[in-house]
């Protein structure tokens, strides 16, 4: 019994323990491996949140296709549930019979300049101006998970002027 304890206490084992412990602590401090399983969730309100203002739901930058098009497309929702698309910093080329539509961002037509065949879209109205900030009302029934791209579309020539992929704000 006595010899067991003395053999434990004496010798190199203690040196190993004495040296190993700080290394273990240092490794823990550096890597904090428990954080792999522990989430720290916060939920701060916007410092200026106002329930009466329209809230942005989705937004995206416009990319030019058939014509140079730039700016931002954002979908807002008012407290009473009305949704609208707003274009800002917007610029495209002027043209005949140009419309603002919503389409599916994975629609192959949107990668091309000219739409061939079926084009699944939701009409929002004629383009009010080829430059400047402008709002378009959305039909109440439109599913924005499905129609998640804003498109500047020339009906006469089936030309896609520009596309904005809308992502959650």
């Amino acid at each position, binding site marked *: 019994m006595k010899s067991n304890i003395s053999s434990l206490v004496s010798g190199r084992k203690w040196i190993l323990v004495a040296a190993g412990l700080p290394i273990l602590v240092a490794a823990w401090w550096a890597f*904090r491996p428990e954080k792999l399983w522990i989430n*720290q969730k916060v939920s701060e309100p916007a410092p200026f949140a106002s329930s009466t203002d329209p809230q942005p739901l989705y937004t995206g930058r416009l990319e030019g296709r058939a014509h140079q098009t730039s700016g931002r497309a954002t979908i807002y929702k008012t407290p009473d549930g009305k949704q609208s698309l707003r274009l800002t910093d917007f610029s495209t080329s002027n043209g005949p019979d140009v419309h603002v539509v919503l389409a599916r961002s994975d629609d192959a037509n949107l990668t091309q300049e000219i739409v061939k065949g079926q084009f699944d879209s939701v009409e929002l109205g004629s383009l009010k101006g080829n430059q400047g900030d402008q709002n378009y009302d959305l039909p109440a029934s439109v599913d924005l998970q499905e129609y998640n791209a804003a498109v500047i579309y020339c009906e006469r020539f089936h030309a896609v002027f520009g596309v904005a992929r809308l992502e959650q704000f």
Partner: protein
Amino acid sequence: MMVRNVKTLLALAALAFTFGASAYAQDGMKHEDKAKTLETGTFHGKVHSTSGRATIYQEADGKLVLRLTNFKTSNGPDVHVILVAAKDADDNANFLSSSTERVELGSLKGNEGDQNYEIPSNTDLSKFKTVSIYCERFNANFGAAPLEKF
């Protein structure tokens, strides 16, 4: 002779109008200006699966605030929110070794959820274009959000 000149002029004017004119729309936004949204962008970062949106607001008194929404990253030691003077940043980018200029916004409050960070008032946002979730201990970029004008 005069009449024909006038007609030609009118025709030319009509042509010029059709091709040259640009229609300018200016719809307003119905809200009292409490805070202006200046810039926004989404996070990318595969190594530490970082996602969500970063938006910079300017409050009515001029204060700049960075807000993270739908935010998620991996938890880690000594993680900070910084702005870097770059257009974008790669996963695990080391801003110390690349001596990229940065602005410290504070320790990451949580690895999930909506959170706000104050931006020093003298920060030049035209220069610091990217938000980075940065692990100071290992000098590694967890995720970056390149900002674009809202």
